[in-house]
């Protein structure tokens, strides 16, 4: 097709609505934000607009809390590798065959299962243990779907936490983590009882303890010591929400494009399952992993806002305040937009830097 100046007219016609919106709601804000970070821009009427050069940035780097919140942000990102590894593991398992070869075996299994479930559920219900009855019933339904439709149905069900993630599920989890009557601690207490362990269930969202709590951190980091606290709760919730999500789907797509001949050659060479995984699967998936790591890092550095706002208000004692939540409080609660923009731009530079590092390192690995 000819490339010519005449085409600009037509191109503009098609581009116009999107471009206008883009300029108004993306380009202009970018410039305003950059410019604003050099001023005392504020929505508080008492604060006049003055140019302060790098003033905001300097106060930012002198701000003890900035480093505290940075630590929080990075801490929460520790869950990302676990979640990615989990997605990979799930993808590998779900990529295998789940269909039973013999049709009559399958139908027989299904019927047997249906009767088993019906029987178990009713018995448990009547016996008064309704919770277990529900669990048995659910196991049965999932099993039936799984036997019938194979790995597709498992994949669908595992995607649900990811798809429904949002304010609703965040609130759900804050209920589950309730240290007194939340489901999680009930289960833990049950396990402790069975194993005769005499310990308290974790405080989760009310506790400032953390798994890295043994590190000697400055006092304003409000380090509560070793244990399972608010950060772990948020991380756990994050892993739950991400493990069956887009990453798993991307890995599934990647797995299906690995040529089976590679595995056949490995089998002939006598490789074990683990060796196959390490030397064929993982390297072949390198581009996908690279993409996922880059995207997750970018997202992770910006994350933690919803959880902070809905579950903990950044606490207890500020240990769940991530940089994004900090930007929110500075900009919309204290109304100091200039300072908030400065924090946002520092965050951007961090993202850019880490992405570039990822890129360099990752490209080398992929090639």
């Amino acid at each position, binding site marked *: 097709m000819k490339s010519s100046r005449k085409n600009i007219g037509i191109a503009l016609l098609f581009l116009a609505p999107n471009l206008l919106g883009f300029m108004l709601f993306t380009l202009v804000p970018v410039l305003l934000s950059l410019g604003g970070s050099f001023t005392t821009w504020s929505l508080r009427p008492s604060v006049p607009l003055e140019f302060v050069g790098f003033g905001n940035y300097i106060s930012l780097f002198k701000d003890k809390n900035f480093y505290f919140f940075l630590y929080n942000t990075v801490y929460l990102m520790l869950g990302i590798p676990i979640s990615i590894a989990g997605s990979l593991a799930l993808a590998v398992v779900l990529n295998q065959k789940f269909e039973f070869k013999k049709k009559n075996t399958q139908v027989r299994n299904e019927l047997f299962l249906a009767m088993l479930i019906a029987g178990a559920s009713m018995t448990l219900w009547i016996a008064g243990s309704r919770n277990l009855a529900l669990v048995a019933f659910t196991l049965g339904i999932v099993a039936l779907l799984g036997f019938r439709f194979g790995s597709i149905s498992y994949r669908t069900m595992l995607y649900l936490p990811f798809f429904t993630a949002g304010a609703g599920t965040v609130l759900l989890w804050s209920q589950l983590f309730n240290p007194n009557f939340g489901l999680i601690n009930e289960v833990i207490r049950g396990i402790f009882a069975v194993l005769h362990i005499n310990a308290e269930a974790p405080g989760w969202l009310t506790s400032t303890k953390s798994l890295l709590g043994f590190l000697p951190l400055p006092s304003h980091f409000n380090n509560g010591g070793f244990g399972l606290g608010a950060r772990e709760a948020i991380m756990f919730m994050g892993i739950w929400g991400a493990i069956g999500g887009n990453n798993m789907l991307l890995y599934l797509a990647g797995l299906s494009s690995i040529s089976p001949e590679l595995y056949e050659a490995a089998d002939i060479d006598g490789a074990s399952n683990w060796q196959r995984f390490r030397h064929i699967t993982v390297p072949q998936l390198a581009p996908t992993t690279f993409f996922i790591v880059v995207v997750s890092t970018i997202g992770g550095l910006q994350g933690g806002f919803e959880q902070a706002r809905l579950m903990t208000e950044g606490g207890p004692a500020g240990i769940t305040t991530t940089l994004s939540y900090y*930007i929110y409080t500075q900009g919309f609660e204290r109304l100091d937009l200039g300072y908030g923009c400065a924090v946002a731009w520092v965050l951007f530079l961090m993202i850019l830097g880490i992405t570039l590092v990822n890129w360099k390192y990752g490209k080398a690995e992929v090639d």
Partner: protein
Amino acid sequence: MKREVQLFFKHCGMIVFVVAMILPFLWMAGTSFKPHSEVERASLVPDSPQPQNYAVVLKKAPDAFTGKFLDLDFGRWYLNSVLIAGWVTALQVMTSCMAAYAFSRINWPGRDKVFLLYLGTMMIPGLVLMLPNYQIMVSLHLVNTYSGLILPAAFSAFGTFLMRQFMGGISKSYDEAAFIDGATHLQLFLEVILPLVRPGMVSLVILSFMGNYQSFFWPLVMVKDDYLRTIPVGLLSFSGQYGQQTELLMAATLMSVAPLIILFIVMQKQLVEGIQLGGVKG
């Protein structure tokens, strides 16, 4: 035979894992039917189910525990969420398709550089933009209005990127045949290209609706009055005001999550295709 047994155990392992993952949803459902007195117990199934919790949340009945009607307008939030997400999705799809057409089917000087600019801004964290966008809204007097909630989200670089990926896969021969047949760009766009990228549009609709339905930050800062709240923001105030009434909170949460579950079950095939096409191509 051993293979079949192994397979059976593989299934079992998966089943247990899946059930563990969806257990929170089960608990949510169960708790939403509990009367207030049972909430403190960590059970899945209420002893005496109380379905009118749902009516209470929808303001159709007084709360069994306090005896009063709720002070918050959940039904309205529902409407808002669906309305706003719907509008944003519609606008996004329209403008993204048109822009993607300009980026992929028309050859004009500077095209690739401008597209790179689009891509570049996708890397900038949304937070950088939120603060000034708020100021812009204040200046335009659009704070606390429907337009203010809809417009900024309606123009997406991501949507343009996704549609351009899909359009890139369509052979240029169709364009040439259409030009020889006598089509203008507009006719080519409407009659040939759009029908061929329908799978991409469906994926975009799902992703966009889902993302915007769950959008939290922007409605949070934009909305002051209760009647304008969307569900995520509404749940926040619900939790603040009635946080002790876990049974009502869970009923509200379940209702807010339900449309997503339904949307997902109905559309999951197209959705998976869209993600894999968009992500793997990179």
